[in-house]
C-alpha cells in the first residue's frame, strides 16, 4: 500500500515541479513586478509602488478595458450563434461524416494562425475577393473597405475561436442520448419544445465550456485586432504588448496583466455561480 503511494507521488512529482516552475513561478514574478517601479531606461528598480495600478484608472486605459470587454462579449455571442448549431449538427452526422468534418476543422490548424489571418487581409482588402463577390452579385455597388474596421476584427475573432465552441458543443451533443428527444416528442413535445426542454439542457455543459473557452482568449487576443483592425481597435492585449515591447514599461504591463487576469477570473466566477454547472469543474 505504502509503496504504491510513494510510486504515485514519484510519478506525479515531475508534473508538480513543471507546474510550479512554469506556471506558478511566472505568475508570482508578474505580480511582484506589478508593484515595482520602472527604471529610467530599461527594467525595474526594487521600490514598492501602487502607481502602476492607479495609472490604469486614467480614462484612456479604462476605455481600453471597456472596448476589450465589449469586443469579447460580441465575439463570444457570435461564436455561440455560429458554433452551437455547427457542433450540434456535426454530432448528428454519420460516423464517416463526423470524421470528415473533424478533419476539415483540423486542417487549418496545420497552418500558422498568423498566416491564416493574412489570408483575411487579402479577402477584406478594398476590391478584394469579398468586395468583388458582393459587387458581382449586385449586393453592393462600391467596395466596402472592410479591412482595418471593427467588423473585420470581429470576423477575425470569430474565425480564430469558433472551433473551440464547435468542439465543446460537439462533444456534449455527441454524448447525448437521442432517445431522450424521442421520449419528449412521444410525450407531446413539438420539435422546438423538445429542443428547448431536453437538447439544450443536455448540451448546456458543452455550450458553457465553449463560452469560457472562447471568452477568455478573446479578452487577451491582440494580434487579430492589430492585423485586421490596424490602429482602429486597441485592446488590453495590444496595450500590454505596447507597454512591454515598445514603451519598455514592464511594471505597468504586469499590472495591466494582473488586472486583466482578475477580471476574467471574476467573470468566470460570476458565470459559474449563475450557470451552476458542475461539469465545468474539470475545465476551470
Amino acid at each position, binding site marked *: 500500500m505504502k509503496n504504491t503511494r510513494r510510486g504515485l507521488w514519484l510519478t506525479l512529482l515531475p508534473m508538480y515541479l513543471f507546474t510550479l516552475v512554469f506556471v506558478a513561478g511566472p505568475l508570482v514574478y508578474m505580480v511582484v513586478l506589478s508593484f515595482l517601479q520602472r527604471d529610467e531606461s530599461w527594467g525595474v528598480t526594487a521600490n514598492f509602488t501602487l502607481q502602476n495600478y492607479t495609472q490604469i484608472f486614467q480614462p484612456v486605459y479604462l476605455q481600453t478595458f471597456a472596448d476589450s470587454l465589449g469586443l469579447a462579449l460580441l465575439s463570444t455571442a457570435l461564436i455561440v450563434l455560429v458554433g452551437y448549431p455547427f457542433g450540434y449538427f456535426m454530432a448528428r452526422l454519420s460516423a464517416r461524416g463526423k470524421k470528415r468534418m473533424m478533419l476539415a476543422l483540423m486542417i487549418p490548424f496545420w497552418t500558422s494562425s498568423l498566416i491564416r489571418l493574412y489570408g483575411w487581409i487579402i479577402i477584406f482588402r478594398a476590391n478584394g475577393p469579398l468586395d468583388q463577390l458582393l459587387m458581382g452579385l449586385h449586393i453592393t455597388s462600391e467596395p466596402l473597405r472592410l479591412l482595418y474596421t471593427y467588423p473585420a476584427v470581429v470576423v477575425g475573432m470569430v474565425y480564430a475561436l469558433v472551433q473551440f465552441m464547435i468542439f465543446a458543443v460537439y462533444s456534449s451533443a455527441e454524448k447525448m442520448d437521442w432517445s*431522450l428527444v*424521442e*421520449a419528449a*416528442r412521444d*410525450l407531446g413535445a413539438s420539435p422546438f419544445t423538445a429542443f428547448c*426542454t431536453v437538447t439544450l*439542457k443536455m448540451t448546456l455543459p458543452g455550450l458553457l465550456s465553449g463560452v469560457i473557452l472562447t471568452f477568455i482568449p478573446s479578452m487577451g487576443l491582440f494580434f487579430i485586432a492589430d492585423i485586421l483592425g490596424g490602429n482602429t481597435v486597441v485592446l488590453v492585449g495590444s496595450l500590454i504588448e505596447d507597454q512591454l515591447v515598445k514603451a519598455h514599461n514592464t511594471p505597468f504591463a504586469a499590472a495591466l496583466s494582473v488586472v486583466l487576469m482578475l477580471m476574467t477570473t471574476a467573470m468566470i466566477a460570476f458565470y459559474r455561480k449563475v450557470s451552476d454547472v458542475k461539469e465545468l469543474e474539470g475545465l476551470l
Partner: protein
Amino acid sequence: MDQPVLQLQNITKQFDGTPVLRGIDLCVNAGEFITLLGASGCGKTTTLRIIAGLETPDTGKVLLGGEDVTSLAPNRRGVNTVFQNYALFPHMTVAANVGYGLRLQKKDKADIRTRVEKLLELVQLEGYGKRMPAELSGGQKQRVAIARALAVQPKVLLLDEPLGALDLQLRRQMQFELKRLQQQLGLTFIYITHDQEEALNMSSRIAVMRDGRFEQIGTPAEVYDHPRTAYVARFVGTANILRGTVKRSGPVTCIETPAGCACAAAQGTPPAAGSTASLAVRSEQVQFSTDLSADGMDGVIREKNFAGGMLRIVLELAGGQQLVASRHGIDLPAQPGQQVKITWQPDHAVLVQDEEAGA
C-alpha cells in the same frame, strides 16, 4: 362490434435497402395485451416505432381508433412509449419527469402535482418525487418511465423490452405488476420481448415475429399448443422438430424418419402422402423406455443434465437427429449410452409448416 384501437395495414419498411418489415398486418382491440415476440433484428422495435410515429413506414397504414395517423408526428398521436433504456430526463426530478407531458398540455400546476403523486403511488414510488433519475435503481427507473408514459393517458401504451435490463427476480415481479396495471387501468398494451416465458405469462395475444413478418398471431395457448410453423414451435417453448416423408395422411399424420415412424395431429388440411412434413413435439411430452421390445423410435441417451428443477435428457435418434426430453426430478436410472425406445402420444405433437417451405 367495437372499433379496433389500433390497426396496422400492410406495413413495410426498408433501412438502406434492407427490408426490415415485409408486410405487417395487425388488429388490436381495446384492453388487449399484445406481445410482439421475436429474436433480435426481427423488426419488432421498428414496428413499435412506426406505431409511435418515430419512424415512417415505406408503405402501409397505421390507424388509431379508425383514424389514419400514418403521417402524423409522434406528439399528436395519443400513443406513448416506455423506452428500452427508459430515456428518463436526467436533468429533471422524478416528479418533473412524470409531469413532463402534463406540463406540455399546460395543465394547472396543482392538478399536475396531484396527478403525479397519484401516478407515483400507482407504480409504488410514493415519496420518490424529489429524487433524480441517477439516484434510482433499474426497477425504479422502469416504474418512473411507466408512470411518465401513463401520465398523458395514452390510447395505447407501447413497451419496448421494458424489463430487458432487470435481473430475473425483479423481472418476474415487474411482469406481475405490469399485468396488474394494465388490467386495473383497462389499457391497451403493445409489448415487445424476446423472452417467450414473459410473452406466455402476460399476453392476451402473442404475435410471433420473424424476419419482418408475423409467423403466427394467437393466444398464448394457441401459440404454445398449436404452433403453425416449425419456427414458432422452436421459439415458443423450444420444441423438438422432426422432418420426414408423410407415410399416412389424416387427422393423425405419420411421417417416416430414419429412426422409425412418428405421428402427430394435423392442423387444417393434412399434407398428402409422399410429401415432406415436419412435426413439433415438446420435450415434456417425449417418453422413452429402456425396454427395447416396446414400440417406438430407436435412439440412444447422449446426455443428462439437471437444470432448474427439471432433468434434461438429450436423445439421439438413429440417423443422427437429436431430441430433448425433460422430466421432473433429479436423476433417473438410465445412463448415457443406453439404447431406448422413444414415443409420444400423437395428439401431444403437431404438424408444423416447414421452415424452408415457409420462408
